[in-house]
């Protein structure tokens, strides 16, 4: 049983074991094991506008997608979790649809429709398409959080003199914050990661990082790809660990060193 668990961990970690060493490689193309180690591809990544521009594009697009997704998903989750209305079931299904349709089909659809609208190969186009793809996962995360929300807390706030707006601001929002953050994080990552739709509609102007990586791997197998993968992995890992560190720091600040014998 333990062996089995170990095998699974190994299987999941395998790409890392290969990609991280390759990013420090001295070889001129992706090659494992690397013939020698150095920083040269990190240097070239940070100096090559051909890589930096798609990086900024991706960050910009993913940020815009996150904002747009949350603006759509937050009211939708409140409505679909808390209220009963005609067509609620259908609305729930519609929210999930983008998840059910293969990305390649969506991509072809966007390509033809956005083409007619003249927004293919623009950031707007990519943002709109990615928002559609982000909605289901962000909605799922947020509505799960909202279902677990104890509405007694809102009643308590009202009884204690809070207006509906004050209740939302002082009670609902702070308690829902972790759910909102995770939901937004998923929206961001899904856009940042997305390749298929980006290949179809991002073009040269709105080229995203995954698209650039895809092009690069087809043409020259530039080891910078390994550098980017490593950097992304580090960024995500930091993103996951940061809240834990933050909470621990806040706790120790608040009451000094933890008394012995208490968790």
């Amino acid at each position: 049983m333990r062996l089995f668990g170990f095998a699974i961990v190994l299987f999941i970690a395998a790409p890392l074991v290969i990609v991280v060493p390759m990013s420090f490689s001295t070889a001129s193309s992706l090659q494992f094991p690397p013939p020698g180690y150095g920083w040269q591809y990190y240097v070239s990544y940070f100096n090559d506008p051909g890589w930096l521009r798609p990086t900024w594009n991706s960050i910009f697009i993913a940020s815009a997608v996150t904002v747009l997704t949350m603006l759509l998903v937050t009211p939708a989750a409140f409505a679909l979790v808390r209220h009963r209305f005609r067509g609620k079931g259908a609305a729930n299904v519609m929210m999930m649809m983008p998840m059910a349709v293969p990305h390649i089909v969506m991509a072809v659809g966007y390509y033809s429709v956005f083409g007619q609208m003249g927004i293919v190969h623009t950031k707007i186009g990519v943002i709109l398409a990615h928002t559609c793809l982000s909605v289901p996962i962000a909605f799922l995360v947020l509505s799960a959080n909202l279902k677990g929300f104890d509405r007694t807390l809102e009643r308590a706030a009202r009884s204690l003199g809070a207006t509906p707006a004050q209740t939302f601001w002082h009670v609902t929002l702070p308690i829902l914050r972790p759910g909102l953050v995770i939901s937004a994080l998923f929206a961001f990552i899904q856009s940042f990661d997305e390749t298929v739709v980006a290949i179809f509609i991002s073009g040269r102007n709105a080229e995203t990082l995954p698209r650039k990586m895809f092009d690069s791997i087809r043409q020259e197998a530039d080891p910078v790809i390994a550098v980017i993968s490593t950097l992304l992995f580090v960024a995500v890992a930091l993103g996951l660990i940061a809240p834990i560190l933050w909470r621990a720091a806040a706790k120790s600040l608040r009451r000094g060193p933890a008394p012995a014998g208490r968790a």
Partner: protein
Amino acid sequence: MSSYLSLSGINKTYGNFTALGDVNLEVAKGEFVTFLGPSGSGKTTTLMIIAGFEKATRGAVTIGGTDLSDLDPHQRNIGIVFQNYGLFPHRTAAENVFFPLQMRGTKRGPGLRRAEEMLEMVGLAGFGHRYPKELSGGQQQRVALARALVFEPSLLLLDEPLGALDKNLREQMQIEIKRIQRALGVTTIFVTHDQTEAMSMSDRIVVFDKGAIEQAGAPLDIYHRPQTRFVAGFVGESNLVPARIEAEGVAQSPVLGRVAYLPEGQPQAAPGQEVTLMIRPEHMKLSRAPLDGRMNAPMRIETIVNYGDNALVIGRAGDTLLRVRVLGADVVILKEGEDCTLSWLPEAARLVTR
């Protein structure tokens, strides 16, 4: 009794279903009133209408002469302690208690000081910096109470606040809530389905069933003089047997035979009328042979449940199960399956006509 809180003609219907039918009640200032009833009896609905979370279909709620009907919950100045406390998990105990003051524009510094004072009042001095999840159930309960009282509400509503506590803590909190309520003199409505809780805490009990008030009165009045069959069965343990009135002071029961009762202070009943006789288990006695000067009836003992200081003896007279409370010392001579005589005094028999 001058009225402070007044419910007049409160009705609540959901479509065809009547949740509350014409509830009328007057509560005096400083009074501790308990709404007692099974779940679905309308007691919580009534509470939510007072709090403003439910709207009455008809009728009005007034406090000190002011009609609350058009006020939102946050405008009513009513403190509520919910069953699961409803403490804000992202705020410390002191910040929770500060919340209602914050909503009323008090600055953080003086507000938190006032909150700490209130926590001290409920026996939680020094716990202000803890988060709700770092407190025990009883402590959370006290924080909720402090939070509901710190803004000097015109009314305190307690919605089954002791339901989640274990037995010892419950009793401790019953005493504690009474103490605080007396100290502050705040008019209080306490909702529960637990009749011992109602008995021990209340100035007055209002018994609810099926969306209506069955009876309202002092705890002992409710216990000794139940006006309806429901109240007789719900409040305390009781033996309820059908009977027919033969003449004033005499009823004939298929279970207990001829039963004499004292007509004074009892509801009117004409000869021939079908009534219910109630005799409390502690007013019954068991003996080997009929006793002089008492009403006697035969019974066969079926089950003896021992509680140490006393025992509950369940026996059968005809097809009817009867319950008798016996002192612990007396129970050793009784055996299950034994035939014996059940006896009681005529004044123990209570007539219930509704």
